[in-house]
């Protein structure tokens, strides 16, 4: 089903564009001269090995870290994402890998944190209803939204974090390994959700280690390696190509197995 969607939706205008973004932590260069474009209605998958700089890139876009150099253009204007509030205000919503929830607050309070309804006299009833609606859309299995988040499992917390990012209608959603802690049904639900978000013409950046998930929803796959761009692929790229770009080597177990498989199938074709 995703294939058909993808073909008839031409990418819209450019939402986000990074040029030459670098980020140093002391002596460590987490990102070096990274370029990235995201269009409206497009899902860009960001893949790379552990420590490739994916989360750092997401945090730069979320305003958590400031880039050491480079420019960020959002919705046609060059922007400085000085803090998370700025990024949120522009319409960049983020699900962080380290989930960034307040364990002492309940689910409703976490979903609405920083965006509470009716600040001088919190509208708890409306917030609770909205929270349930969001969670039901995600087919969340959350027993009670009035329990502190500390009592939830990893997957449930992830769902809360995703629900949080969907609360206000953002222009760009950043999902840092959103399905890492999820079960089968919930992963399908989240991938489905990404499809729906794309259909609403939002830009999506998704990070995942699962190539099957990536291929299922991504319009483009951007590979980072050691903090640098290392290739861009369509969703039909082969596993071998991707693994080679991610690891930076042609010779590894995945490519070897692929070669073996091909050579087993090949004999019939040979004379």
């Amino acid at each position, binding site marked *: 089903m995703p294939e058909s969607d993808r073909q008839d939706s031409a990418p819209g205008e450019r939402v986000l564009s990074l040029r030459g973004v670098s980020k140093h932590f002391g002596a460590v260069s987490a990102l070096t001269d990274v370029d990235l474009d995201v269009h409206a209605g497009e899902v860009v998958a960001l893949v790379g090995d552990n420590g490739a700089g994916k989360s750092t890139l997401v945090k730069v876009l979320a305003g958590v870290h400031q880039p050491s150099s480079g420019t960020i253009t959002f919705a046609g204007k060059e922007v400085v994402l000085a803090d998370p509030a700025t990024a949120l205000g522009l319409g960049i919503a983020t699900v962080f890998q380290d989930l960034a929830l307040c364990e*002492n607050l309940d689910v409703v309070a976490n979903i609405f944190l920083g965006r509470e309804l009716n600040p001088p006299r919190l509208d708890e009833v409306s917030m609770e209803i909205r929270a349930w609606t969001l969670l039901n859309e995600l087919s969340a299995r959350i027993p009670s939204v009035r329990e502190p988040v500390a009592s939830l499992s990893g997957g449930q917390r992830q769902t809360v974090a995703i629900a949080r990012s969907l609360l206000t209608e953002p222009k760009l959603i950043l999902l840092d390994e959103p399905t890492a802690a999820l079960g089968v049904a919930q992963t399908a639900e989240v991938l489905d959700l990404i499809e729906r978000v794309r259909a609403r013409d939002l830009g999506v950046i998704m990070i995942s280690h699962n190539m099957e998930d990536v291929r299922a929803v991504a319009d483009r796959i951007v590979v980072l390696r050691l903090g640098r761009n290392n290739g861009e692929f369509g969703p039909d790229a082969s596993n071998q190509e991707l693994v080679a770009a991610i690891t930076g080597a042609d010779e590894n177990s995945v490519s070897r197995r692929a070669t073996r498989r091909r050579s087993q199938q090949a004999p019939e074709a040979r004379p």
Partner: protein
Amino acid sequence: MNQETQQGSAPLLDRSDVRVKHADTIGGTIGAFIDRVRSGDLGSLPVIVGLIIICTVFQSLNPVFLAPNNLVNLLFDCSTVGVISLGIVCILMVGEIDLSVGSVSGFSSALLGVLWVNSGWPVAVAIIVALVLGAAIGALYSFLFNRFGMPSFVSTLAGLLAWLGLQLYLLGSSGSINLPYGSPLVNFGQTLVMPDAVSYALAAIAGIVVFVTGYRTAARRRVAGLSASSLGRLLLQAAAVIVILEFIVYYLNQGRGVPWMFGLFVALCVIMNYALTRTKWGRSMTAVGGNREAARRAGINVRRIYLSAFVLCSTLAAAGGLLAAARLASASQQAGTGDVNLNAIAAAVIGGTSLFGGRGSAYSALLGIIVIQSIASGLTLLDLSSSLRYMITGAVLAIAVIVDSLARRSRLSHGRA
């Protein structure tokens, strides 16, 4: 009484998960309460148990302890340090500390004496100046904290010395300034009590407010398809509040009556409780205390939250100092020294506000200071020296912190943060 039966088969929005036990009956409510306590969510239970023990012990040693007029005096004494302790609740909520509240209170009482009595300023102006300077001290701490990352522990320890020095400097060689007896401020601190009718009415209003807000919320929740407390439970709750408060007021009215100063303290607690639990600001305070980075990533202006916490804390400390001056009818070098600092911090912790941040209640200042003042009053009645009082208060504080730490560990293992 059960919502599910009233609503027929359609499950309520928040009651569709069958794994969760819901306490819909009175028995269920009690069961849920016991579960909560066992998991380490103690609330104000330890302090109420402690208070009962203290009262029983002192009453059996000296029957004057529970006499109405002794309790009225106790409430006068509570109000001064209690107001300071309310500020400590604020600063503990965000996980920081202010060790200088005693000195700030002493400084503000000295300022009141100098401006009002020595320089002849109108008392209202002197009070406002003292409060504004208190706020400025808090702003300074938060500047040092936000700008230079100076731990509040250190900056306020420095402040403790500095403001004490300023207080001694202001009072000069005379060492103390007497406030005029019979002036409204001193009357407020020493004698003014509510007329009986007013105190009974206020107690009744409290119960009615509890009922009306509870009823409105329940009605809205029911309309929205959420579970709501039943009318019976709301009525029971309101009735309990009214009976308890009216009894306390009745008992105090057998003596001099309810001090206006205590009324002011309780009013501040109620306002603070509302602000902490029902406003966006309070939500942000709790979030910053629970997980500062998560709060920042949610777009909360964390620095402004710290600013508000520090400013509120030292402003309330200054206010407490003014009340203490009124209570003693003097601004002296001793004001705000000795155990004031620790009593204010101990009260908040004993009342159930966590030293670890993100967890607490405005009412913990109220409960905690009553515990501390009860011990002080009981020991004074027994003619025991302040040396013993210090030791016992220290022990109570240690117990409170141990309970806090154990409860926290238990909460973590029961998934209640």
